[in-house]
C-alpha cells in the first residue's frame, strides 16, 4: 500500500468497504427475487464490479452527477441510494425511486445526482456530456461521470460527444467498465484496436486501471475529478473488471461463451470485496470479526428492505398517465385538449 493510500483515513476505507458489501448484498437479494419469481422482468447483476462504482462514486460529491447503465444497481447504491426505495423500484412499487415506472433498467436516486440508468447501450453518453456542458455554462462546480461498458464503445455517439467534450474542455469523465463481454460476445471480437487510443485520438487524456482495486480507482478518480474542476477535463478511464453472473439473471448456462475456470479465477483471486477486506485486516484497521459483523448487518438491512418492498403497495392505476409531462397532472386529459 503506497504512501498516498495511507492518507485515506479509516472512515473512508470503512465506507468504501460497506458500500461494496451493500452492492453485493443488494444484488444477491435481487437475484433471489428473480429466482423465486417475485421480481417482474429481468435484471442485470453488478456483482464483481463493485470496486468500480464505489471507487468512483466515493471520489465524488453529492452534487456531482453520474449517468448509469442497464447494469445500474451498483452505481445507484454507490451514489448514495437506500435499499428500500431501490427494492420498491425493482418490484414496481409506488415508493420506488421512480414510483415503479422505471424498474431495474431506469433505477436512480435522482436527488443524489444520479441522472438515471439507461436501457439503451451508450444512450447516456450524450446526457453525461451535456450535464458537463451545463456545469460549465452555469458556472457550477460539479463533475459528471459517465459509466458504460466495453460493448458501448461501439456506439458512434461516444465519439461525437468525446469530440465536443475535448473541444470545449468539459468536466466529464468517461468510465468504461471493461468486463470482457457485451452480452454473450467477447470484447476482442467486437472492438478493434485500442479503447484508450480511441479517446487519445481526440486529445483526451486516458488511463487504464485495475477495476477490482477500489483504492486505485478511487485515487485516480479523485485526481481526475479535481482536475476537471480546474478545467482540465475531459478524461477517459478504462477499468478492467468482471461480472460474476450472466449477462442478465436469466443467463444461466454460459459455457458456450466463457469458461467456469475463468469465472472461478476472478471470483477466487480478484474479488474486490474479499481483497479489500483482507487488506483492511492486514493493516489492522479492522478485525475479521468486525467485518463479518458489518456484512451481517448489511445483509439484514437488505432482507428487511426486501420484506418492506414486497409488502409495499403498487402505484394506483390513476398514476399511469401521470408524469408524462412536467406540469400536467394527467396526460390523457391534456392530450384531448383539456386546458
Amino acid at each position: 500500500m503506497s504512501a498516498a493510500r495511507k492518507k485515506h483515513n479509516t472512515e473512508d476505507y470503512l465506507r468504501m468497504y460497506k458500500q461494496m458489501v451493500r452492492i453485493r448484498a443488494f444484488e444477491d437479494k435481487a437475484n433471489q427475487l428473480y429466482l423465486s419469481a417475485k421480481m417482474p422482468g429481468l435484471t442485470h447483476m453488478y456483482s464483481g464490479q463493485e470496486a468500480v462504482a464505489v471507487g468512483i462514486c466515493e471520489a465524488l460529491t453529492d452534487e456531482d452527477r453520474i449517468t448509469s447503465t442497464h447494469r445500474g444497481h451498483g452505481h445507484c447504491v454507490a451514489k448514495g441510494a437506500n435499499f428500500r426505495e431501490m427494492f420498491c423500484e425493482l418490484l414496481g412499487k409506488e415508493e420506488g425511486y421512480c414510483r415503479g415506472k422505471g424498474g431495474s433498467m431506469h433505477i436512480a436516486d435522482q436527488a443524489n445526482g444520479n441522472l438515471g440508468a439507461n436501457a439503451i447501450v451508450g444512450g447516456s453518453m450524450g446526457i453525461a456530456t451535456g450535464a458537463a456542458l451545463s456545469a460549465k455554462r452555469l458556472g457550477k462546480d460539479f463533475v459528471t461521470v459517465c459509466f458504460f461498458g466495453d460493448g458501448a464503445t461501439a456506439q458512434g455517439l461516444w465519439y461525437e460527444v468525446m469530440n465536443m467534450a475535448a473541444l470545449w474542455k468539459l468536466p466529464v469523465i468517461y468510465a468504461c467498465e471493461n468486463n470482457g463481454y457485451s452480452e454473450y460476445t467477447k470484447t476482442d471480437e467486437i472492438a478493434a484496436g485500442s479503447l484508450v487510443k480511441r479517446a487519445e485520438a481526440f486529445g483526451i487524456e486516458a488511463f487504464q486501471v485495475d477495476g477490482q482495486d477500489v483504492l486505485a480507482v478511487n485515487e485516480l478518480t479523485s485526481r481526475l475529478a479535481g482536475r476537471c474542476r480546474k478545467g482540465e477535463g475531459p478524461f477517459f478511464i478504462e477499468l478492467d473488471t468482471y461480472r460474476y453472473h450472466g449477462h442478465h439473471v436469466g443467463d444461466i448456462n454460459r459455457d458456450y461463451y466463457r469458461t467456469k475456470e475463468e469465472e472461478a479465477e476472478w471470483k477466487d483471486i480478484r474479488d474486490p470485496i474479499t481483497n479489500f477486506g483482507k487488506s483492511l485486516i492486514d493493516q489492522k484497521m479492522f478485525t475479521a470479526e468486525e467485518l463479518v459483523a458489518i456484512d451481517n448487518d448489511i445483509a439484514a438491512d437488505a432482507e428487511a428492505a426486501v420484506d418492506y418492498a414486497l409488502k409495499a403497495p403498487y402505484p394506483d392505476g390513476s398514476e399511469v398517465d401521470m408524469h408524462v409531462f412536467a406540469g400536467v397532472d394527467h396526460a390523457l386529459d391534456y392530450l384531448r385538449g383539456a386546458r
Partner: protein
Amino acid sequence: MTREITLSKAVNEAIAEEMRRDPTIFLLGEDVAEAGTPFKVLSGLVEEFGTERIIDTPISEPGFMGMAVGAAMTGSRPIVDLMFGDFLYLVMDQLCNQAAKTHYMSGGKLKVPLVLRTNMGATRRSAAQHSQSLQAIVAHIPGLKVAMPSSAYEAKGLLKTAIRDDNPVVIFEDKLMYQDKAPVPEEEYLIPFGQANIKREGRDVTLVATSSMVQVAEEAAETLAREGISAEVIDPRTIVPLDEQTIIDSVRKTSRAIVIDEGHQSYGVTAEIAARISEKAFYHLDAPVIRMGAMDVPVPFSPALEDLTVPTSEGVAENARRICRGELVHAA
C-alpha cells in the same frame, strides 16, 4: 403436411430455407450467431451457415444498418436483426433517409433488397425503452414496406416474401409471441404482401387487428359470439401496402368497426386505418370507428400500470357490445 411450431421456429425456418436457396443472403446483428439472439430465435443457424453468413456485430445499430444498405446495393440480400424494436430510433437515418429513398432518388437504378427484422410488444415488464411498438413511424415513410405477422404461419410466409422482395421491408415480430405455436405447413409457401386475412367471418362488427392484437380480437370475437354478437376479424398482415379493399368490404357489410394495434394510439396505425374506413365506408357506417391503440404514455415498468396501457380482449368486447347496442363510443 402441417405441424404446430412456434413463431420463433417459423422465423428460423424461413431464414434457413431462404439462405439455402440463395447464397447472396446473409444475416447480421448483435449476438445472432452462437447465442442465436437473446430470444434464441436464430439458434442453430450459425451451425449450418457459418459465421460468414450469420454475422455477430458490435453494438452499432446505425453502423450495421448502414452496411446492410450498402450490401443490398451491391448484390447481397442482407437480413438485419435489430434486437429490440425500440432501437429503430437509432437506425432511422439509414433506414428512412438511405434505404427507403435510394431506389427513388436513383431513378430506379439502385435497388435495396433488405429485410429489417425487429420486434414490438409490451407487458414484458421491460419498461419504456424495451417495449415500444413503432410500426406507425416506419409505415409513414414512402419506400418501406411493413409487415406485422400475427402467428407462426404469417411469420414464416411473410418473412420469406420479405426476403425475396427487392425493396427494404421492415417486419415486426411480437416478442411475446415467440413461443406461441400455430399450424404451419411443411411445404414451402409465401404470403403475398397487401393481402389481408379474414381470420373469422362475422356480420355485426369488423375488428381490424394487427400482430398479437389479432389474438386479442379473436378472443373478443369468441366472447361476443357467446352473446350473440357476430364479429369479423381481419388481419391486414402488411400495413404497407394495406389491403384497403378487404377491410372496406367487411365494414360495408358489418357497418361497424374497431381498429386495434399495439402502437401508441395518437398519430398511430389505428388513425390511418380508421381514417380510411371512415372515408371509404362512410355511407355504410352505423357508428364512429373505434380506435384502440396503446395508451399515449411511455410504457411503465410496474405491472400494475403496464397492463393498463395495452388493448385487451375484454376492452375490445366491451367496445363491440356498446357499438352494437348503438352507443356512441369515443376513443380513450
